[in-house]
């Protein structure tokens, strides 16, 4: 992790009619940081993430993502980030190799780069035997690891992970975090949401959103001190139990 800021938001707000989904959120995220973005259901996490990915225009406030303006340079933002959600979104009826080549092609990798990248990726994931298998036939844990690797194929500055480990077995869940650490060590910023509170401990810093605002933002250790809590689960409970909004 370095001191270079890759995400900077200032009073970022999104309204839907009278409803303020995210209310003046301000924070900085650093290069190579693992940044946990937590909150109760309906707190406004998804809305915030959509804005940060350049998919939704804010109502007010400002932000730069990977150095690009959140209003005017959304296409440049998209080229410089990766995104992966719990909902599996590779092509099930393409093979592992075809998926890698397809997404690499979309992100503008050259044939040469594609060849190198797909070989090293398949090697790292230990999928040599499975490279020509249809993705649909792989176990969930493998799919999620592959999805993540594809999301960072173009070496983005930031990767957004929306509950990447939901429903994954405990061993694969830990292997997945090995991949996350690895990417962060290479300088890729990780912006991650999760419902597993042990995973909150793996983040450099954690934000807690409640009812559209950021209620807390600090390292897991300091948050636990601040709330005299033994675990992040207790911190979360302390912060979220007063939540008024219980949307999705």
């Amino acid at each position, binding site marked *: 992790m370095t001191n270079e800021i890759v995400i900077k938001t200032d009073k970022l707000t999104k309204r839907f009619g009278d409803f303020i989904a995210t209310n003046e959120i301000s924070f900085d995220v650093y290069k190579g940081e693992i940044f946990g973005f937590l909150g109760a259901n309906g707190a406004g996490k998804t809305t915030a993430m959509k804005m940060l990915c350049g998919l939704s225009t804010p109502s007010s406030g400002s932000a730069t993502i990977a150095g690009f303006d959140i209003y005017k340079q959304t296409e440049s933002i998209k080229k410089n980030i990766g995104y992966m959600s719990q909902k599996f979104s590779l092509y099930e009826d393409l093979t592992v190799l075809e998926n890698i080549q397809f997404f690499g092609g979309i992100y503008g990798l050259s044939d040469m780069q594609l060849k190198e990248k797909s070989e090293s990726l398949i090697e790292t994931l230990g999928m040599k035997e499975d490279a020509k298998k249809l993705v649909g036939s792989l176990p969930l844990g493998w799919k999620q690891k592959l999805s993540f690797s594809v999301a960072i194929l173009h070496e983005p500055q930031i990767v957004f992970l929306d509950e990447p480990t939901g429903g994954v077995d405990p061993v694969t869940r830990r292997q997945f975090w090995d991949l996350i650490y690895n990417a962060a060590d290479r300088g890729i910023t990780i912006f991650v949401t999760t*419902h597993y509170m042990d995973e909150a401990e793996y983040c450099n810093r954690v934000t807690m959103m409640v009812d559209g605002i950021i209620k807390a933002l600090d390292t897991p250790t300091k948050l636990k001190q601040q709330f005299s809590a033994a675990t992040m689960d207790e911190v979360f409970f302390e912060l979220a139990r007063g939540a008024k909004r219980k949307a999705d």
Partner: protein
Amino acid sequence: MADVVLNNISKTYNKGEVVAVDDISFSVEKGELFGLIGPDGAGKTSIFRVLTTLILPDSGTASINGFDVVKDFKNIRMNVGYMPGKFSLYQDLSVEENLNFFATIFNTTIEANFDLIKDIYVQIEPFKNRRAGKLSGGMKQKLALCCALIHRPTVLFLDEPTTGVDTVSRKEFWEMLKRLKEQGITILVSTPYMDEATLCERIALMQNGKIMSIDTPQKIIEQYPKPLYAIKSENMSLLLNNLRKIDEVESCNSFGEFHHITFRENIPIENQIHMISLLQKNGQHSQIEIKQVTPTIEDCFIKLMN
């Protein structure tokens, strides 16, 4: 008497290519809160679908309240409640209309069994005229539970009711289950969250269509084969890599702010001293803290997987 009995149930898909449930037998006692714990693909949903008579098993037999899942499916359907993992109510009917619909289908009324759902229903009542499709996740879940209970089932099947739900709502949901259990309803619930296992009376830990262990959470924890230690230092990611290279360390997994480790030999004190001196030798770790801990269900699950 057991309310739910499975004998050697198997279920495959794609002409036998995918084995979802592999020769599983277990039973759930009357009034018991029983949990199927396992990741996606463990076979939990297939078991629910066999028991609720929605699919036929390839082999084996199963019964609910003494009724056979194949021969007596009509009796079973009248007597069980089922909340599928995927929201399956009518999105274009209102909250009240959905509840009324399910009551009517089961030849009863909302009033007849209102005491059973009252605690849950009051929380969604302010939105009773809202279409189900427009409800938030937490409220959909509560409505689905009400609809599954409105005919006062003897057995309630809940397929991953808390998946994707935040930790506060999850705690509330388990409180609701406890109260339902007190009313004498037998509950079979599945979850991928290992920390919820201890809220059940008995659990089956499942992986790839098989049961790896079945017992009370307490007994499963007691069966953990070795002393377990939690260790931390200032650099957790490096610590994990270093620990994996130490011969005496048998297993090492991250668990929140600590790593959990077991040793190959049961001579913990000497091992500990040796290991700590190894870690300190390269000077990369300060403030090493190590202590013996009680295993969690997740520790047990990982051990059983290996």
